């Protein structure tokens, strides 16, 4: 209804307002080079660039949705579960035990025992120079890490009355062996005890399986143990 042909008032010739003015939108475009794309009456063809761009985007979209869509299954959470990369495994990088131990210590133990291994006086016992850490064999320490220990516990002449967090379910044998090795051999803290192997941890984990339900170890229970565990 607003087309110039159907509405007399909008046609330049008939409109009294436009008398004496140049007619037509195109005149403006001719005068001002900045406005060379002034929309005109006719429909310009869609730019080929735009068509190619849109086509590329849509093909990419289809590919990506298919490739990482997990088959649109509700229980598929891994975007690599289907499609081309199904075979791609995400094997965790292998770390040397010291680096792994450092990482585990920083992310778990340091919250209480502090990054410097000195603990918090009156709260959390130190690991640096601790007689529990530097014992000849790791039997007690492995047990403590697996199922925790319940205070009061004497460490370096002070007594700490607190409860530790057990790590049986949250750290694997390799991680526990690595972190115990890291703590026992940490020279910056003056610790120079022997390293621990994952096999030793596995053996004690199996042996104390039933123990975990009974809660943390008590100091008396741990002290009753021999220093050296018989070899598995």
């Amino acid at each position, binding site marked *: *209804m*607003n*087309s*110039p042909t159907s*509405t007399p*008032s*909008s046609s*330049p010739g008939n*409109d009294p*307002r*436009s008398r004496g*003015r*140049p*007619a*037509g*939108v195109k*005149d*403006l475009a001719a*005068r*001002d080079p*900045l406005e060379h794309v002034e*929309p*005109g*009456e006719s*429909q310009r063809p869609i730019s080929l660039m735009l068509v190619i761009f849109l086509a590329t985007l849509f093909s990419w979209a289809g590919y990506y949705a298919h490739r990482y869509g997990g088959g649109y299954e509700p229980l598929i959470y891994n975007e690599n579960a289907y499609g081309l990369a199904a075979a791609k495994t995400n094997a965790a990088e292998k770390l040397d035990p010291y680096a792994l131990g450092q990482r585990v210590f920083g992310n778990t133990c340091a919250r209480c025992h502090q990054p410097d291994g000195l603990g918090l006086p009156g709260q959390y016992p130190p690991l640096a120079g601790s007689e529990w850490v530097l014992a000849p064999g790791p039997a007690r320490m492995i047990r403590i890490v697996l199922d925790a220990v319940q205070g009061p516990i004497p460490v370096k002449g002070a007594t700490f009355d607190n409860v530790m967090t057990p790590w049986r379910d949250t750290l694997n044998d390799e991680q526990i062996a690595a972190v115990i090795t890291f703590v026992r051999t940490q020279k910056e803290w003056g610790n120079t005890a022997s390293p621990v192997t994952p096999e030793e941890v596995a053996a004690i984990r199996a042996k104390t399986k039933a123990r975990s339900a009974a809660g943390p170890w008590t100091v008396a229970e741990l002290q009753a143990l021999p220093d050296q565990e018989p070899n598995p």
Partner: protein
Amino acid sequence: MSVLWILFVCSLVVLPGIALLAFRWAMRQGEFRHLEKTALSIFDDDEPVGQTTDCFPGGQRGKKPAPTRPPNPISRPRLPEA
């Protein structure tokens, strides 16, 4: 979760229904004719072309030499007589 089904019906039946009606009405109003000319619909006939209509208070407007605007191809409604 009956509420969810109400929303579901709303989204799939009621709203598209409204959309269709609105669309039919818009077509009849001639909404989709002469799309490109609409770019000019925000200007009045007497607005200067290429000259800014805004400036800092007390300041000077942009001094771009500008030709007068050609007549706007869009018909303007008139103020109803008081």
